[in-house]
């Protein structure tokens, strides 16, 4: 029996516009494009799962097909679901290590600098390439020592003094890799007279979804929803998120792809620049000093998909002395864990090449983007430092950071 509720693919009118805007189909003819891998073959798969076409593994879940679709078909969701539902279940250690960020993060932050030292050694890269199919051309992200969550204990009491407080969902990247971004968020919000609390969180699920660990993603989602409900506690308190893809997961992937009920938290969740932008509009603007920098701004795919780019741009425009150049909207190629995989590494590079060329021709002082994996990809392929919009605001605040710890 065909489940009649799941027929959104039937709204597809076969116009092929999604394929025209698919970054993967642009660079490789091995991928027939989102129309064929999504709505076209879904009608075959629901009749007989053996009709699965392997080529849908090339989808990098950037969601640009959904932005392009004039008929509101959730093309990327159909593909992710099909990958999980119909692909033969094979355990791959590599996919598990790349996607279970809490597990990898906890081990790596325990070892901290030692882990970073080893993953940068060429022989280690070759071994990872040979045994795990993690491309040796890519450098694994750096890990911090200890977690952000643990560090936050040292300044928890200072945050309680603020009348207005928001819940900060920091995500794995801030927790395990880059405490500085988390500190910048605190710094900027504090400068706007807003305090921060944390919640108990697990990985939002974006890498799990991309690597077909959907049951694990659902378990994490249930945990996060419950934990955020508790932190909101029936008030109108906002939850701000500094990673664009985490925001996308909490707001869109949970209800649409994972079919979770997010009605209690959804209207509270806000991407950080959207929250800051609204504060700016209410004249809550911190004192910023001119930066005298030229910056190229790259808009991440998932932020585009949820309509958040305008807020980041609006906030950046308010920073004095920042000459902002908007890069043509294109996928950088890395797509989370996709570009680290040996079999997709070349595709990821080919997708990003136009973007890298654009950046290099602009010769900016810095590149700004909202997404941590876009940041890694751009830093690996251009000589520029890549910053989150909030970190740029933090730099403009009185020159140097507040001392947050007491």
């Amino acid at each position: 029996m065909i489940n009649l509720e799941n027929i959104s693919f039937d709204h597809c009118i076969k116009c092929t516009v999604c394929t025209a805007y698919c970054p993967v189909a642009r660079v490789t003819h091995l991928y027939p494009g989102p129309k064929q891998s999504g709505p076209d073959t879904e009608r075959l798969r629901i009749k007989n799962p053996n009709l699965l076409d392997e080529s849908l593994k090339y989808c990098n879940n950037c969601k640009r097909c959904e932005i392009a679709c004039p008929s509101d078909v959730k093309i990327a969701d159909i593909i992710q679901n099909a990958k999980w539902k119909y692909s033969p279940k094979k355990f791959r250690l590599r996919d598990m290590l790349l996607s279970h960020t809490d597990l990898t993060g906890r081990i790596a932050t325990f070892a901290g600098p030692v882990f970073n030292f080893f993953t940068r050694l060429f022989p280690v890269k070759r071994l990872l390439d040979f045994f795990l199919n993690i491309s040796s051309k890519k450098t694994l992200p750096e890990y911090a020592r200890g977690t952000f969550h643990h560090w936050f204990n040292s300044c928890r009491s200072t945050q309680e003094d603020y009348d207005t407080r928001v819940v900060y969902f920091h995500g794995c990247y801030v927790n395990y890799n880059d405490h500085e971004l988390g500190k910048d968020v605190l710094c900027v919000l504090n400068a706007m007279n807003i305090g921060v609390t944390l919640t108990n969180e697990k990985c939002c699920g974006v890498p799990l979804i991309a690597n077909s660990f959907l049951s694990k993603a659902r378990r994490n989602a249930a945990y996060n929803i419950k934990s955020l409900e508790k932190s909101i506690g029936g008030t109108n308190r906002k939850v701000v998120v500094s990673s664009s893809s985490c925001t996308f997961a909490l707001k869109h992937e949970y209800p649409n792809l994972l079919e979770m009920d997010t009605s209690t938290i959804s209207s509270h969740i806000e991407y950080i620049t959207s929250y800051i932008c609204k504060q700016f509009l209410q004249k809550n603007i911190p004192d910023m000093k001119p930066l005298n920098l030229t910056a190229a701004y790259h808009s991440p795919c998932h932020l585009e998909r949820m309509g958040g780019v305008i807020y980041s741009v609006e906030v950046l425009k308010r920073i004095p002395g920042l000459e902002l150049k908007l890069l043509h909207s294109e996928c950088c190629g890395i797509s989370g864990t996709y570009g680290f995989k040996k079999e997709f590494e070349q595709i990821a590079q080919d997708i990003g090449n136009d973007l890298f060329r654009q950046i290099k021709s602009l010769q900016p002082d810095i590149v700004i983007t909202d997404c941590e994996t876009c940041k890694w990809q751009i830093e690996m392929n251009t000589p520029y430092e890549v910053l989150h919009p909030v970190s740029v605001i933090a730099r403009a605040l009185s020159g140097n950071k507040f001392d947050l710890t007491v």
Partner: protein
Amino acid sequence: MNVDCIIIGGGISGLTCGIRCAENGLSCAIISAGMNALHFSSGSIDLLGFHPGKNIVFSPFDELNDFIHSHPRHPYSKYGRNVIEMALSYFGDQVNLKGLELFSNKQNNHFHVTSLGTLKPSFLSQKSVFNQHIMEAFQNNPGIAIINMEGFRDFYPEVVASNLKKNSLFNRCKIVTGSIQLPDSMTGLKNNCNLRSIDISRIFDMGSHIDEIADQIKKIAGNSKIAGIPAFLGIYNSGNILSRLCDLTGLFIYEIPTLPPSILGMRLDNALKSRFADLGGVYIAGDRVKKGYIKNNRVDYIITQNNPDTHLTGTFYVLATGSFFSGGMISESESIKEPVFDLIVEYTKNRKTWYSHDFFHPAGHPFFNFGVNTNDQLNPFDNSGKTIKNLYCSGAILSHYDPVTEGTGGGVAVSSGYYAADRILNHS
């Protein structure tokens, strides 16, 4: 979020309006749900193609006054011939600024070849589709070659040739057909059957192997003077590729519009969006305006699907959401609705009167004429009949015109978008 002008709908009409507003210093945001209908269009702009009853119009501007007189509720009648003329020339100039040249046969229509080998009257076409040289060459009964790419399934040169031969203009021309082959190294594929016009365009954009391809075209063309080829000669680099092919073959090569995704439409779309961005306009793609709220005969704010908790406010609003296909209007079993503002839609009450039983009926289908009614300033009416003062409607959502039967689709989109901007600039 607050801007001077919020445009709902990012098609040809919304973009024309946005460019004109932004050029005059207004801050503009366009919100677009999915890619626009240019991706399904021929990429030519028609102004007035047919008289009622399907007689072809040769000089639209000569006939416009009569047409306006006999169609008092037509969008053209709201602003008249002068605005239409200014709008089309403005549109051509804006696109030209981004390197895309449009051809107009002075004040007359020209006739470009379709992928079925019929001729279609149009007012503006890209120069790769029609230009002065081709127009002159066609007058001397030249040999014509219709050329395809081996394996490309969206184009059949034999069909084009046999239909062209039926046309008295070409029955003295020798028409040959044939297919060129891409060097294997360019695709890495065993066969090219999966390639669409967009894939082939990307291959051409790289600009390699052009000499080889030119040789193949020359062989097929033989003694022909003119060669028609599907519009897949590149998106960004097409002008350069085409002129190289013309030089190398000594032929007048022109492009024939293909099935979606339309490369010619995408070129126009790129040019318009890039012009809008140059002027500081913000284009929000992939978001749908869920609802607009009206207070004291003015739009107060709107909300979108992606950010339902955020009120977007503008001084002026433009509704350019298109017709049924793009969701500008929604047809239910017995009624038709405009989903954003719940504006009054003009339609006949009995569903059986919405369409003609003959698909190709010369009078067309009545539902094409359905749409939002506006006053002469393009302001629509809310469901209690009151004018909404800061809202303007433009493009395919307008009532009382039939883009297909009249051949007025592009003309109305461009001119009403231009005129909406005109009204806004007049008030600000």
